[in-house]
């Protein structure tokens, strides 16, 4: 079962995200030395990094729409945390979002788009003797 999908290229395997990488710094002979940080034998830099990545992925998977924000210029939802590593798109979501995708349309735009379909329905229901509905000019 795929957890995430890119809605631009349909990649469901390779992604990118930004994570804080914890460094331990010390001064030796006046110069700065950087290493992983350890607590006794345990590499905390490693654990912290892996945990942060897992947290981001599971948050994005569980929160569904909360991880997405609406980009009004491109007219699509974009993931605030995870990008597609294949095409660079931010349109990354859980797979079931693909079905809900068109729901962001305004009511007015949706009514307008489906006007003809409604007229077809009226025709089927009432035959061809339809009263003409008043419409604002």
């Amino acid at each position, binding site marked *: *079962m*795929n*957890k*995430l999908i890119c809605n631009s290229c349909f990649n*469901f*395997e*390779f*992604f*990118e*995200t*930004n*994570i*804080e*990488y*914890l*460094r*331990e*710094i*010390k*001064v*030796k002979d*006046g*110069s*700065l*030395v*950087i*290493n992983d*940080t350890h607590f006794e034998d345990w590499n905390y830099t490693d654990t912290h*990094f*892996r945990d942060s*990545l*897992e947290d981001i*992925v599971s948050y994005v998977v569980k929160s569904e729409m909360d991880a997405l924000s609406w980009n009004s210029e491109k007219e699509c939802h974009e993931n605030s945390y995870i990008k597609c*590593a294949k095409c660079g798109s931010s349109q990354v979501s859980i797979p079931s979002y693909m079905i809900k995708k068109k729901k962001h349309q305004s009511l007015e735009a949706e009514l307008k788009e489906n006007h003809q379909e409604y007229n077809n329905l009226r025709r089927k229901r009432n035959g061809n003797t339809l009263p003409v509905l008043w419409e604002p000019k």
Partner: protein
Amino acid sequence: MEIRCQSCGNQNSGFLLPLWSKTTFKLDHGGEIKILHLSPLESLEDKLTDNKIKKEITCKECGNCDVEIVLNEFEKSSSISSERQAFEGL
């Protein structure tokens, strides 16, 4: 160069600093995460020169953020090269 914790007196070792990095990962069918690549998005050099480091560095011994960093011009350049080597070794 010198780093000192104003709270516990810890000096020149045991300071923690997070640096943002970009990671590329793979989600396999079992939902497991494989880390494929890691590249730095910010450098210690920038943090040192624009003083941002002071807000983000913490003392590993006591967890305090009140850390004093004394840096002079000559040491600044020598510290940058060691930082480069250390971070590019990722």
